[in-house]
């Protein structure tokens, strides 16, 4: 069995597709909203150098990635051990050498990677305009408003993804998450005022 097929098999027998998908969305939102909040706060603060914004946002993104990956690994490892132990009790045999044993060891690593990479990758995309501005590339908007707009696009994209999972109309699902983002920005502006 090829590597991807084998790993897909592990996800199937441990019924972990849904968990990985859920973690991707939850932590993707964490990353997107954290970046949105930081960029909005910097925008309201006035003239801030893109380098300061990039460093602050990157620091937050790395912290989110570390938090997400370690917490997911520890919790999933415990859950998979419990699952395997229950199965071994029912089968009255040691399954450590079977695919179920391999799944119990490897699936937590995969889920931890998803949980960590989701906020990191989305954060990197959102602060992309700041990097481009620092590199001297022209942008249609100023760097921070461009990053904020990118955050809204990412959040809209996550909403569409949720809509496809839930079988609802993609546009309403996307718009719903954008409304949440707008409420977040409004709250930040209200507090900062």
């Amino acid at each position, binding site marked *: 069995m090829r590597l991807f097929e084998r790993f897909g098999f592990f996800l199937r*027998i441990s019924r972990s597709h849904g968990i990985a998908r859920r973690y991707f969305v939850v932590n993707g939102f964490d990353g997107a909203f954290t970046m949105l909040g930081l960029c909005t706060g910097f925008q309201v603060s006035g003239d801030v150098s893109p380098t300061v914004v990039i460093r602050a946002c990157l620091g937050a993104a790395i912290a989110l990635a570390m938090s997400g990956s370690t917490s997911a690994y520890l919790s999933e490892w415990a859950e998979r051990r419990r699952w395997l132990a229950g199965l071994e009790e029912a*089968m009255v*045999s040691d399954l450590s050498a079977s*695919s179920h044993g391999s799944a119990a060891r490897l699936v937590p690593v995969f889920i931890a990677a998803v949980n960590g990479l989701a906020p990191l990758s989305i954060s990197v995309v959102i602060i992309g305009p700041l990097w481009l501005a620092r590199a001297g590339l022209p942008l249609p908007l100023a760097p921070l408003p461009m990053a904020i707009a990118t955050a809204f696009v990412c959040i809209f994209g996550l909403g569409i993804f949720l809509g496809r999972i839930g079988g609802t109309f993609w546009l309403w699902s996307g718009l719903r998450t954008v409304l949440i983002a707008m409420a977040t920005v409004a709250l930040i502006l209200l507090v900062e005022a």
Partner: protein
Amino acid sequence: MIAVKRLVLDVLKPHAPNPLEFSKALAEQGGYRVRLTVVEMDEKTETLQVVIEGDDVDFARIQATLADLGASLHSIDEVEVVGEPEPAA
């Protein structure tokens, strides 16, 4: 030369992988014909009757595949073997 033509096995397995995926995994070990019947089911396991037919069923390979799939072989209920003459040198 002895060729194993047919095996009927009593197997206990977890619910995952499902019977279709399970029987495909056994069949692809040697191009075998596999017939699987779920005899009993409880909360976490299924008891199966697995019939494997082929020109020469490799039992060791079947056992290894069962172990890999998390299954336990409870018993060999039927065997059909054929003694075939050695091919002339």
